[in-house]
């Protein structure tokens, strides 16, 4: 692998950018691997990377039906944080944030993780009490947290609506200073390059159409590019997890929904943190290119229609303009949707699928970009050792039978 550095950048600049080589190969699928990962989003690529790097398992193929990161990984609004309520979630997501903190160096690829902080505003005295409860939970979980007064919020984000007639006046906020944003494509590409360098075959335009089983055990997959065998198969297909489960003959506690996001035309820097206003369910940040990136809650209807629609656009754009009235005249540039995998407790599923040899990493729903390093690390650990990592154990599929749900949808509300 050719090493990326500021020096290389400078040298290539002088040489007309002619010295760059492709960041990964385009291999044809081999008939057999030790491990197959289905789905070339962030979680699949990170799993392959950690299998090779941490566990020395290099005969690995990542099969992606489209192009790398073309699913939710390339469609999300890149908020990264670990301000969860329950200790199990805080431990998992903070492990992820810590991996993100070292990721650019680890991958030798700039994932542009910017710890610009993330605040969740409170719009009434009751909200403020809930925010304080969240703050206390975070502190108990060992996560950095701060309570901000209304004046502090105003000093940090003067753009917010502090007018006397604001529909939802701001009373304060709870913030996580270590939260922030990253560059979604770079996370996929960085892991892809790191995995490829260690021998992993990344195979694009290769859709898995069937799971082969012998005596109840998964032994390989049927794809649009032929049959491929492996006795360990990992599924990281997000919104299509139920479709894959159906191929293997089981059902999952998942509904697929479209989640939409929006970006405005690029404007000068006006917002240097991430803000979520729960009263509207809308959150916003500004990209390095200057676009105002924002989104809201899930669609109301289970769907595999990977596109935006009007009801949500009206709600979210209306909310943004009330949150930050100065943005009313800014033009919308793009609006899109991704299909996310929502579980009853809004927590992910990591663990064996019930079919021997087939493992799951899914159910991240609206918030799995921040978890890509941890999700990949956990699935790699599970597939390499056959055992859960301590941090992934609580997220096993068995919680739906034992009733030990980790109900973050109720505890920390919507947020991505």
């Amino acid at each position, binding site marked *: 692998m050719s090493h990326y550095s500021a020096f290389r950048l400078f040298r290539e600049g002088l040489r007309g950018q002619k010295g760059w080589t492709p960041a990964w190969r385009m291999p044809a699928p081999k008939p057999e691997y030790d491990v197959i990962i289905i789905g070339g989003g962030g979680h699949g690529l990170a799993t392959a990377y950690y299998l090779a790097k941490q566990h020395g398992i290099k005969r690995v193929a990542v099969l992606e039906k489209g192009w790398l990161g073309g699913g939710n990984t390339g469609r999300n609004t890149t908020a990264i944080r670990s301000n969860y309520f329950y200790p199990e979630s805080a431990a998992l997501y903070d492990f992820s944030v810590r991996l993100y903190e070292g990721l650019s160096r680890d991958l030798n690829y700039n994932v542009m993780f910017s710890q610009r902080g993330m605040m969740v505003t409170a719009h009434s005295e009751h909200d403020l009490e809930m925010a304080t409860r969240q703050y206390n939970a975070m502190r108990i979980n060992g996560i950095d947290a701060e309570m901000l007064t209304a004046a502090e919020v105003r000093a940090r984000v003067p753009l917010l609506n502090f007018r006397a007639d604001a529909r939802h006046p701001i009373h304060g906020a709870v913030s996580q200073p270590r939260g922030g944003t990253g560059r979604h494509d770079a996370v996929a590409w960085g892991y892809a390059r790191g995995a490829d360098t260690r021998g992993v075959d990344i195979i694009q335009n290769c859709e898995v159409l069937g799971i082969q089983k012998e005596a109840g055990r998964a032994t390989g997959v049927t794809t649009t590019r032929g049959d491929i065998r492996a006795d360990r198969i990992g599924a990281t297909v997000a919104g299509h997890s*139920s479709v894959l489960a159906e191929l293997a003959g089981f059902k*999952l*506690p*998942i509904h*697929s929904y479209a989640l939409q996001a929006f970006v405005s035309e690029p404007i000068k820097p006006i917002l240097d943190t991430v803000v979520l206003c729960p009263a509207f369910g809308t959150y916003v940040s500004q990209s390095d290119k200057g676009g105002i990136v924002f989104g809201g809650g899930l669609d*109301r*209807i289970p769907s595999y*229609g990977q596109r935006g629609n009007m009801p949500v656009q009206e709600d979210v754009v209306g909310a943004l303009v009330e949150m930050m009235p100065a943005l009313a005249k800014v033009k919308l540039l793009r609006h899109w949707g991704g299909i996310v995998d929502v579980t009853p407790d809004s927590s992910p599923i990591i663990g064996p699928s019930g079919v021997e040899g087939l493992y799951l990493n899914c159910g991240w729903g609206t918030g799995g970009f921040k978890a890509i390093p941890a999700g990949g690390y956990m699935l790699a650990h599970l597939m390499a050792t056959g055992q859960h990592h301590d941090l992934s154990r609580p997220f096993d599929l068995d919680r*739906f039978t034992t009733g030990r749900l980790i109900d973050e949808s109720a505890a920390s509300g919507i947020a991505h």
Partner: protein
Amino acid sequence: MQIFPCPFCGPRDEREFHFAGEAGKTRPDTTGEVSPDDWATYLHMHRNEKGRTREVWVHTPCAEMFIMERNSVTMEVLGTECLRAKS
């Protein structure tokens, strides 16, 4: 906005409708012992189909539950049926 057909009120704005669940699930008989597996399957496991689906919906203004068949990719509505016993 998309227009959905309520079998009682006719064509109405999609925002008046609410998805309730997949059609055809049978609640385990809770007068007897129900195994955790059966209960979890009933409560949480879904077909979550891509393509043709058969689901229970409610039209909030008239509060009637009904069956809707639709395509979960194109959002095309293929038909609705009332859930009341035919008299």
